[in-house]
């Protein structure tokens, strides 16, 4: 006996919805499991007085965007082109853009 096409579609949709619930449950479980790792990171940030994530180590202003000085997004001169690919991901911090206007 061959399956009706609608049965295949309904089964696929049900499977997809079940997968959504499974990933939601997985997110919840893994989130709880990550509490210890988060506590370790927070402890390190507090004890070393860290200000930034170690995501981009290619340039000063991408390694420490929160500490970047006012000219750093332009590095050499105000209309110089961006050197690093991560610069296109990391815009100048808001407090640098609003400097002197708050």
């Amino acid at each position, binding site marked *: 006996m061959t399956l009706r096409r609608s049965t295949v579609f309904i089964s696929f949709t049900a499977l997809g919805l079940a997968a959504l619930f499974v990933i939601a449950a997985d997110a919840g479980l893994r989130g709880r499991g990550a509490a210890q790792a988060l506590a370790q990171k927070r402890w390190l940030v507090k004890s070393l*007085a860290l200000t930034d994530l170690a995501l981009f180590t290619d340039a000063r202003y991408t390694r420490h965007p929160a500490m970047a000085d006012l000219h750093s997004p332009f590095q050499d001169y105000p209309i110089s082109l961006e050197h690093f690919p991560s610069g296109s991901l990391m815009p100048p911090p808001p407090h640098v853009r609003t400097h002197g206007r708050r």
Partner: protein
Amino acid sequence: MGGVEKQRCIIDFTLSSLLRRKGKNGALLVVYTLVVFLLASVMLFTQAIRKEAAAVLADAPELVVQRIVAGRHDLIPLDYMGKIGAIRGVRAVSGRLWGYYYDPLFGANYTLVVPEEQAGGLGEIAVGQGVARSSMASEGNIMPFHTHDGRLVSLTVARVLPASTELVSSDLILLTAEDFRMLFGVPAGVATDLVVAVANPAEVPTIAAKIARLLPDTRPIARSEILRTYDAAFSWRSGILLAILAGALLAFLIFAWDKATGLSAEERREIGILKAVGWETGDVLAMKFWEGSVISLSAFLAGVVLAYLHVFVAAAPLFEPVLKGWSVLYPRFRLTPSLDFAQLAVLFFLVVVPYAVATIVPAWRAATVDPDAVMRG
């Protein structure tokens, strides 16, 4: 025939009709799934990294004071600590010593930090996992450093920082203040910047304004500004993420527009025949609704599940080349998964609903015309 059975029969017919144009609809489904996958991956990644940054940096210094000389961050005299400490509401002021070191041997940039509480002895360092990986160093090994005056000194790796902290410590090297000053030639009376602890967090902006007035060559940076920096950096509105999203959305709009503005001659003839054999306009619209739903719902479910696996199980390998940029050290980290149903709902209404509607409108136009006229074209 019951309502449910009727709809199932329409779905059967719709799927047969879709399978008759296997190649076209298969390609459509793949492209659609890719669009959803890309959008959902960006959404899940940015959401998770923003949450992670906010959680991790919640204990960042309340106020950091930098000295600016000729537009650049400069060393700050430690006697500024006394002036800042005298401001009402300031609980404590301490100097931070940190800087960058370029290792020509491995082509990597390290961040050297002096912990406030001495962790190791003179000549000893603690290194992050990224440093240990790139320089192949482990506990007990020595690492060579060039001092500011050209000498070569070796420091012993006493400890490797835990892998769970890699997101904040990958490129760190912790060392003593004496070793730091010896390496970089930083004189005794200065620090890289100052960290100010404030008694009442609500007073931070007032104290920052007082510091800026009292010491005009300084720039105070509050914790809220640090958090806002990361919020802005990984928001939907920024940089390359916007470009990816805009590109994907525009491509999708063109795609949906193309679908909405016309049926193929074959599809029009099919509608005409269905009407001629007794299908009502409502049945034709139901068929077209299911046609749109089968494709868009399948693409949405597959795209979201694949995006979750990509970002949280495989650690976002497709984004790594962009995130990594030119840096030699890149932290290996797994983001804490978070699934925001509100955002998923937005994605659903952005990609599924317009497509389903776009397939109904032209079919409604064709189904309301006389079957004979439709079949004749």
